[in-house]
């Protein structure tokens, strides 16, 4: 294509000139904020609505298991001390994330590697904790996605949060590998800052989830199906089953 050829020619002419400017020079933006950083903020605003929708779903369904009279009920399975520890681990990882950014902003590559490794390790400990929690709920307590609405909404909400943490860990480890191969220096501190924004956001969301799912007490489960709201029962009977 003609346009393609033009593109190449422009490139060929420009190569020598650019070498004087080097990679590190950021071109000016209208707001003074780097494109990638603004993209991350836009993404996080979108992710806010994502978690808001999931959390709203959870709040709507948090006492439906009790109403339906189908256990296990949340008050029976939730283990606050256990999850408090993994929550503390995740929150602590925000500190190590900040230290990683501070290190690279001082051009301390070794510090960056140490704190990136620490952050991803803490993230992995959190994920390990979630894995054991899920197995405990599933195998010992008998709570699955299909058991009741608590199971469905609990596993979906915390699972999707865990997915966010896992993506963050993969990102941090990738950055660590790049830095071990000598690819991260002070001028790349924005790369660390951006993964940091994501990481802190995921932590903040966990504070909300931890409060709603674990800390706020649940109603005790009833003995039978009588607790189902009358409207629901009427709806049930109106459905064209059997």
């Amino acid at each position, binding site marked *: *294509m*003609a*346009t*393609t*050829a*033009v*593109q*190449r020619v*422009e*490139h*060929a*002419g*420009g*190569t020598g*000139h*650019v070498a004087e*400017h080097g*990679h590190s020079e950021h*071109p*000016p*933006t*209208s*707001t*003074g*904020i780097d494109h990638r950083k*603004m*993209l991350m903020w*836009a*993404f996080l*605003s*979108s*992710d*806010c*609505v*994502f978690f*808001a*929708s999931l959390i709203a*779903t959870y709040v709507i*369904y948090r006492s*439906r*298991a009790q*109403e*339906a*009279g*189908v256990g296990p009920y949340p008050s029976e399975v939730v283990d606050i001390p256990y999850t408090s520890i993994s929550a503390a681990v995740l929150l602590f990882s925000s500190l190590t994330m900040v230290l990683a950014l501070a290190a690279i902003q001082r051009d301390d590559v070794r510090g960056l590697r140490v704190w990136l490794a620490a952050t991803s390790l803490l993230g992995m400990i959190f994920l390990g904790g979630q894995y054991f929690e899920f197995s405990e709920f599933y195998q010992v307590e008998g709570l699955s*996605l*299909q058991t*009741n*609405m608590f199971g*469905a909404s609990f596993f*979906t909400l915390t699972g*999707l949060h865990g997915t966010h943490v896992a993506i963050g860990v993969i990102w941090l480890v*990738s950055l660590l590998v790049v830095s071990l191969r000598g690819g991260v220096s002070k001028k790349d501190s924005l790369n660390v800052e951006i993964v940091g924004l994501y990481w802190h956001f995921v932590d903040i969301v966990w504070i909300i989830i931890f409060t709603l799912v674990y800390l706020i007490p649940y109603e005790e489960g009833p003995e039978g199906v009588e607790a*189902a709201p009358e409207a*629901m029962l009427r*709806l*049930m009977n109106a*459905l064209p*089953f*059997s």
Partner: protein
Amino acid sequence: MASVARPQTQGVGTGQAVVSPARATKTAVLWSWLTTVDHKRIGLLYGVTAFIYLMVGGLEAMIMRAQLARPENALVGQEAYNQLFTMHGTTMIFLAIMPLSSAFFNYLIPLQIGARDVAFPRLNAFSFWTFAAGGLILNLSWLSGEAPNQGWYGYAPLTNALYSPNRNVDFWALGLQILGVASLAASFNFLVTILNMRAPGMTLFRMPIFCWGTLITSVLIVLAFPAITVALILLSMDRFAGTHFYIPSTLNAAGELVFTGGDPLLWQHLFWVFGHPEVYILILPAFAIVSEIIPVFARKPLFGYAVMAYAIAAIAFLGFGVWVHHMFTTGLGPTPNAVFSATTMLIAIPTGVKIFNWIGTMWGGQLRFTTPMLFAVGLVSQFTIGGISGVMHASPPVDTQHNDSYFVVAHFHYVLFGGSIFALLAGIYYWFPKFTGKMLDEGIGKIHFWVTFAAFNLTFFPMHFLGLEGMPRRYSSYGGGSGWGFWNVIVSSGGFLLGASFLIFMWNVAKSLQNGKPAGDDPWDGATLEWSISSPPPVYNFREIPIVNHRDQLWADKYGTGHGQSHADEETLDVKIAGQTIGTGEVPDEDPAEEARNRLAAGDQHDIHLPNPSIYPLIAASGLFFTAMGLIFSWPRVPVGTIELPFLTLGGVVVLLVGIYGWSLEPAS
């Protein structure tokens, strides 16, 4: 940063081979399109793909109209009819109007703000290929005879596996999920591009109004799409993992009915929290196009520019607080109905402001009724009809009467066809010279407009009567004694004429591409920067980044700043680069940005650097395609730990990761 000042690394990727025009083989041409990151080419790809889907959706509508042309017709059965109306709605919204708007965003935004590309050119290519993947998934469903058949808003519990055991809903849920990824990626891109890549001196309130429309539409997509993402995840969980998010009761192993506590209304809430902003995602770009066209053909600056920008923002903001008006008949009670009735009526205010501002722009102007102007004025008149029937539906009792009748079908076709499609056609007539360097034929264009205008009203106006007479939507047939036969014949013949009007359009495009009048740089005497460069624009857009000191920059350049009304704010605004004030615009004619020009000239202005082409966006998008297809067909299944996963899905995830890592590790420019 993609478009400026990075050395061209040798041997990056395979797209680097130097291709001279004379030796360009077909393979090289194909490869250059598959790897393109040029916003203009991506815009054309969006436009052509979306237009094909517009024709597909139109064909679906015409089959439906053939079926309804006479009572008790048996052209297509009920099941095929269900698939047709579901795919017609889904196709027109997600595969025709949204991507056609996106085509304009892509092509025009960098040109209007004086940039060489978007902020993230590869992400832009990824958006297009992901859109293509989503559209393909939705339409591949026809091949297995399992096209979505549950209606475009997919109400629960009909979508549950209990009632829809086949793959119809899976194609729909996963296709839409992937289209959502495409829309979100594109919106992040345009948000950053518009905020960050404006030419020196172009403050937010000196942007062309089309940029405002794009900016606010992007915000809407960013904040509305996550709701449907979650809604579709929960739906997919219900279908694939056996949860009961949207179904209140189910059968247990013993065949007994058991209460689960799931709630079908949750779907409606999540869907319409997305779905109503989506309505504005469809119409705001149309408003923005018309707001560009009317001033040019009235030879007057846009009346009440700032108010127009605020009105766009107000419509978007209020648009998040009205979703329950889609649910008036679900029995939420008088309080929610009253509150949402009031918020819905409020939206009429900023919308009315826009309509009066268009009239104010035309008032006393030197009107030129070219084809783009005819379509633009067509929007003002036809959208108003749809807007007024929309306000009627803000009243719960009226809505209850009209709900699920043809009156509603008439209403939203007046806003979506009379609004969005009219504006998109206006935009094509207006910017076709810029895209191709050729004018569309004005004579054929005028015939096209009048046929479209007549056929549109013939098709959709009688639907008001049918709705009031009680004809329900989505029924594949009606009785001979219903008395609806007369208007249905009119509607169907209008529909076929409307279909034929697109043949006139395609004839015009084909003829003009071959031997249309050369357009020149500025055939309409435009006011915005895209008309300051050649048609079609060079690959780098602007040889020198323009300096902006006026809202209608090109008019100011051509006629001086005395043209039209003066803008008080223009005289005090600072010219900024990278957030630093480098001059003020007190006396616009004296080139307030002399220093800016010098700075830029000292920088990278002498060499134009463009982003490298890349195949990774296409690879990443195809990964999404295979992931979704694997889930839909669930085959072949391989055990992973305790669960079985479809092999194709695992392969798709691997391809996606290859795309993402290749993309991250290759130099951007």
